[in-house]
């Protein structure tokens, strides 16, 4: 084994891991994240140096007015996009430098999305919608059926498996989407305005479901502009003008 003294000192390069931020232990680790859009003359900075960690099992809300950079941040956390600058690890994997297909793989393994507009395949049954991530994970159809059925029953939709989205209520559709998000055992459940298209009664139902999922050990991030929804989380990060304005534990 070489002793550290024999290593030639050299200048620090971009991408070098420093001792203090060698692969982070946190589930999500963002370091000085910038996202810049080239819009005409002026570059538009949607995010300006955002850094934060999310531990496993946390229930986090990200709030902010529209145009604050909240959606951009969500897209980055969800690995739908890569930052212009900065580094982002999820579950120990440096995703900020990945290409499209590697990101797709990370989305499949690590992230379960819940969208405001549900985003279910209209022509597919609830069961097939829930199976979708497993198909791209290359799981055999028998395993898929079983896991999708379990996921659907965990959101109390066992009796609606063969229904298509247009035969389901808004709350039921969102629960199908949640089942889909959970079916591949992701590290993170990422919800974007999950109650934005639901009435208040159904919203409460869905938020109760989130609470239960959190209690079962899931890590949850909810992006919202509704204070009510944010208040259900255990920690709230407020974004304004592309920066973290506030990061507080509320429970």
């Amino acid at each position, binding site marked *: 084994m070489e002793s550290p003294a024999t290593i030639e000192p050299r200048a620090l390069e971009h991408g070098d891991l420093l001792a203090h931020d060698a692969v982070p232990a946190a589930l999500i680790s963002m370091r000085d994240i910038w996202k810049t859009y080239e819009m005409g003359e002026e570059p538009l900075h949607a995010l300006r140096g955002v850094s934060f960690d999310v531990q496993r099992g946390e229930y986090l809300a990200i709030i902010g007015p529209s145009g604050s950079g909240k959606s951009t941040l969500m897209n980055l956390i969800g690995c739908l996009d890569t930052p212009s600058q900065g580094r982002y690890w999820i579950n120990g994997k440096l995703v900020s430098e990945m290409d499209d*297909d590697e990101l797709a793989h990370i989305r499949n393994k690590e992230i379960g999305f819940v969208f405001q507009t549900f985003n279910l395949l209209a022509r597919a049954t609830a069961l097939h919608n829930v199976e979708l991530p497993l198909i791209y994970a290359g799981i055999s159809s028998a395993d898929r059926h079983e896991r999708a059925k379990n996921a659907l029953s965990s959101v109390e939709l066992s009796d609606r498996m063969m229904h298509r989205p247009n035969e389901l209520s808004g709350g039921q559709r969102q629960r199908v989407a949640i089942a889909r998000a959970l079916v591949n055992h992701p590290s993170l459940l990422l919800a974007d305005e999950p109650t934005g298209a639901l009435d208040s009664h159904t919203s409460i139902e869905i938020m109760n479901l989130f609470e239960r999922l959190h209690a079962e050990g899931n*890590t949850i991030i909810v992006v919202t502009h509704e204070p009510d929804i944010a208040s259900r989380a255990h920690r709230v990060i407020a974004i304004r003008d592309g920066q973290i304005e506030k990061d507080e534990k509320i429970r």
Partner: protein
Amino acid sequence: METELLTETALERRAPRRTGPRLEPPRRRRRLRLPPAFYTTWESLRIALSSLRANKLRTALTLVGVVVGVAAVIAVVTIIKGLDQTVASTFSSQGSTVFTISKRPSVITSREDFIRFNRRKDVTQDDAESIARLCNLCWRTGIAANAQATVKAGDRSSEGVRIRGLTLSMFAIEDAVVEAGRQWTDVEEAAGRDVAVIGPDVVDNLFDGAPFDRVVGRQVRVEGRSYEVVGVTERLGKIFGFSRDNFVEIPYPTFKKAFTARTSLIAFIQVPEEAQLTAAEDQARAIMRNRRGKTFREEEDGFTLETQDVFIDLYKSATANIYVVTIGVAAISLVVGGIVVMNIMLVSVTERTREIGIRKAVGASRRDILLQFLIEAVVITSIGGLLGVGFGFALAFVLAKAMGFPLLFSAGSAILGVSVSSAVGIASGLWPAWKASKLDPIEALRAE
């Protein structure tokens, strides 16, 4: 990439993540694991079929070009294969041991030629007899003279029947089989008796298809003259839609008496072996040129010497032209069909942008999306190809029935039809599929 996916999955199964959702305990399974690409491909096939089902009319319209292209090729290839067999069996029965000497070639392509050949001297019985006498390589020599006439029996009549004045040797040269009754005899021929051997079509038309042996001994009338039917030949069937069984054959001397106006005849010469054909032709040509008073230098023979190669060559050049035209038609319809498919696929990609976004969000890679749309395009065109093969065979079947040639379905042309249409699918689906795979998931999820 696939191995990486596999090992990663395998690792996870050995050591399940400590954190994360606990909807169910991770379980060990002993099921067969297929490569992940298998499941995504199967999913693509499923999607393709369901989206085609959802847009039935659009799919049907999209298919037209491909169906027409493939059907044209299949029909023509099948028909020509059937014709090839008919032609081969027809001409090989006389084989290439026979050549003919006649006033005009069998195939005349211009009016000028027709006029020129018409100025030639008729080929006469004397010409044929000189060849028979002088050409020592010629094995059999026969005479055939042709006319068309209405044939009657009782109150029935049949128009446009081929009347052939033959020498007895023609039965041997043409390898004709008399199924009922007999050929006429030397004596009957020499005496110019009114006897006839008739074809099965004449039996059908004049004697209500009576058994051939019941027809022997009956009378047929041709241009006011009565002939005793002494024999009926075996049925030969049709070629190119024309029956080969609609004839009345009478001894040549009888024919000369009955049809004086048409005096040019065709001399048939047969050699024992194909190898002797050229030498025999040379001899016969020399004898004929001599009889026509042609000098060594003169180019024009003043008669036509030909073998059945003339027909085979004509047939070959005709089918070659048909093939070229068909391939042209098929190529145009396939290109147009391909463009239509490409257009529809582009529409489909646009319509399903959100679906693509959803699939990408849950982990579909670019390759998965590319394959999905490519498979969809190939499924469309392969269905088109299959329908084309079906329609093509159906068309060939109908034509074969109508024209009376054997139907030879070839698996090769069916496979070719389907593979060509699949190739069209790949070619026309590639760009739309590539566009779909390139979509930004964020933008795609926002699409309406």
